[in-house]
């Protein structure tokens, strides 16, 4: 578990604190950075080969070795998938992943490691807040989303195992403006 916050908890505010604590509870490591620090933060946790989805404005950029020009074949062999997340849910340490035409869903799913990049300002307190926000999008634009909490897991093989069909590890890069 890597946790490289430089700020003291008091400066982050209780909502972000709660979110980061809950990420910990669900075995999701995180780095808290400014947009300029995103490439290094991703570089530090992404194994090769890495594929990714370009980040929206304000969330920095991906390091060059993360290929955004992926195909089904490179997706299957990728060690790491890097994607943006729409927002976080503090009570559950959940990353809300959009399903986009450029493929956030497959890139966040097939590789053994998922790195999600999201804005520190984009954290809602609880599940009801999340569904309120999503409800309007779903009704207006027929959008979809995945609430992803921790790595994929199974207990079907006689003990709890992290890494079933989806990622075995998840890292959140939390970007402060």
């Amino acid at each position: 578990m890597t946790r490289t916050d430089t700020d003291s908890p008091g400066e982050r505010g209780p909502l972000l604190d709660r979110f980061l604590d809950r990420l910990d509870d669900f075995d999701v490591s995180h780095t808290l950075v400014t947009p300029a620090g995103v490439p290094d933060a991703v570089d530090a946790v992404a194994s090769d080969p890495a594929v990714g989805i370009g980040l929206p404005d304000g969330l920095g950029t991906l390091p060059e070795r993360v290929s955004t020009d992926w195909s089904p074949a490179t997706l299957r062999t990728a060690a790491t998938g890097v994607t943006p997340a729409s927002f976080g849910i503090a009570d559950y340490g959940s990353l809300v992943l959009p399903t986009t035409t450029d493929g956030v869903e497959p890139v966040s799913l097939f590789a053994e490691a998922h790195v999600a990049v999201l804005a520190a300002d984009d954290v809602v307190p609880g599940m009801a807040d999340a569904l309120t926000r999503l409800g309007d999008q779903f009704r207006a634009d027929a959008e979809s989303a995945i609430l992803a909490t921790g790595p994929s897991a199974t207990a079907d093989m006689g003990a709890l195992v992290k890494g079933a069909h989806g990622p075995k590890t998840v890292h959140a890069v939390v970007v402060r403006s």
Partner: protein
Amino acid sequence: MTPDARTAKAEHIRRVMDAEGVAVSDNTQGFNEGRYESVADLEDYEALKDEARAIKEDAIERLPDLLDRLRETVEDEGGTVYLADDAADANEYVRQVVADVEGERVVKSKSMTTEELDLNEALAADGVDVVETDLGEWVLQVADEAPSHIVAPAIHKSREGIAALFEDQFDPEESLETAADLTAFARRTLAERIVDADVGVTGANFVTADSGTMALVTSEGNARKTVTATDTHVAVAGVEKVVPTVEDLAPFIELIGRSGTGQDITSYISLLTPPVESPTLDFAADETGPASDREFHLVLVDNGRMAMREDDDLRETLYCIRCSACSNSCANFQQVGGHVFGGETYSGGIATGWEAGVEGRDTAGEFNDLCTGCSRCVNACPVGIDIPWINTVVRDRINRGGDDGRFDSLVEGLTPDEEPTGIDIQKRLFGNFATLARLGSATAPLSNWLADAAPTRALMEHVLGVDRRRALPAFERETLQDWAADRAPVVNPEREVVLFPDVYTNHVRTDRGKAAVRALEALGVAVHVPDVRASGRAPLSQGMITTAREHAEQVADTLLPQVEAGRDVVVIEPSDHALFQREYERLLDTDRYDALAGNSYELFEYIYGCLENGADPEALVDGDGHRVAYHSHCQQRTLGIDRYTEAVLTDRGFDVTTSDVECCGMAGSFGYKREYYDVSVAVGEELADQFRTAETDDRTVVASGTSCLEQLDDLLSRPSRHPVELLVPDAPDVRGSE
């Protein structure tokens, strides 16, 4: 049931328990403990459950409108909705969809509804390769076994068993030992099958009418892959899965994982408004395609559900979100699992409602008796379904369709009940226990000698299915009512009560009744023990609702005038107290129920109230650090009143430790029944073990319920008694020779 059928059933249960019992109990008890821990973290668990319940009530009420709305929404977004009347109709539709895209392989994520439909078999008949991708479901598909649990289908299989299965079926190059090895092997194997699949079939935990969004609650990521990697998505769901809005999903997402496997939330909640925007993935050609190539079919299945909606007693079943809390919190399920406590598709307490609704009464009748009405699932259910009541109602309906009644003459004189002929003779016997007890006391001790004689026990076992290994209750010649009638009245009482003389206290365990009278009198309470009909608990637990209702009416006729005269009703037996508080609501008019339930108190609840209101605690025995092991009663715990016994004993200086099990396993008649004796003892041993540890084995054993006392007496070498017997000075010395 014939004697042979009882024997066969007992043997079947024994075999399953031997083969699967350890894995099932470890897993279910782990889930159950996880549930307690996880819901304790919620700010307001009860309010969240109420909210979830209200959403379901409303949705089922408005279901036809919501289905219309959902169809419009999904079709507007480019999907197709098919409302299937029954399994054959649904399967035919899915087969056609697969045929239309020339599908050769279908990958599936876990879906109970498709199990209900036997969809896999229907597709396989067309030559389609159907692959389950949930690891537990896949293990069962490879092993050709049925699920034993609605959430964790392979719960009955050990790691070693799965490893042997994989070795046998796949002859893998590497050796598979750990759970991680097995998971990695399954992931690789299934990934190959997923990437060249043509159609993805999922269930849906919820579907919102406003946006056409489905929620899939999963942890492995296989549902995500099933949808993303295939161009054609077929979601199959019962019509009851529809909720009005996206916002309505919030309480269910918060409750479902916690209630089921004790996880705050599962790894993935997929909220899909299909067709999803993700590009299509053609792994063979190594190309992605536009999302517009995606096709979506929502198959909504009736298969008996709309009729359940019209059924006042089965309707609640439709609120079920299939979380498995009722399985995991059930002491019997914890021992036997879904291969015994389950029907064609569903398992656990709520399965009776589902199977009766979608399969029929006969299927439900196969396992329905395993619900003993302990009620521990009621608080565990996130939508507050009265699961024991559904089991009772279905049992009543089964009775009415019952067997040939060829043994009826044997119990005729003992059964002045209101039931049809044909009801199982064993049920009729236990349902009329009050009559038996009256005769037993009247003819004691002769009745006890006779009942205990070996030839009698053999005959009882053969004809009535009363297991001969179980000690029978010994009837007292002098009933509690007789004893109390001769007692001098309390002078200038602080208050007056009627003490309800339940059948056991009146005829068998008169000591606890006498101790209750003495304890109350010591606190300045005048106690009347009325001549009153038995509560109706015994017939109700056999599914004899008409008889139970007649009992309830007569009890109310006797007790309500006393209540109107200002007397409180005090009840010693927790199962009767719970009956007054819970089931009488369904058996009596609202006014009469309110008056009786509102003025009835469990014995220690009442003693606690007296002490809180100024009664002198010194009138009761000083515990002086005496070490006590207490087992509270299942139904008492569901009502949350076990704390009064603990509080009073502790305040009086007793050193109290309390058991941590859902139920003792005796449950009235259940532990006497030949076919269930082994289950009952297995449940009871978990309780008994807690009172045999180094920390507890010197403690005096007390229990509130009659059944619990019988079970403990049968399993422990030291005696047990009702806790009130500790509180009165002239009771027999309980601190004696342990």
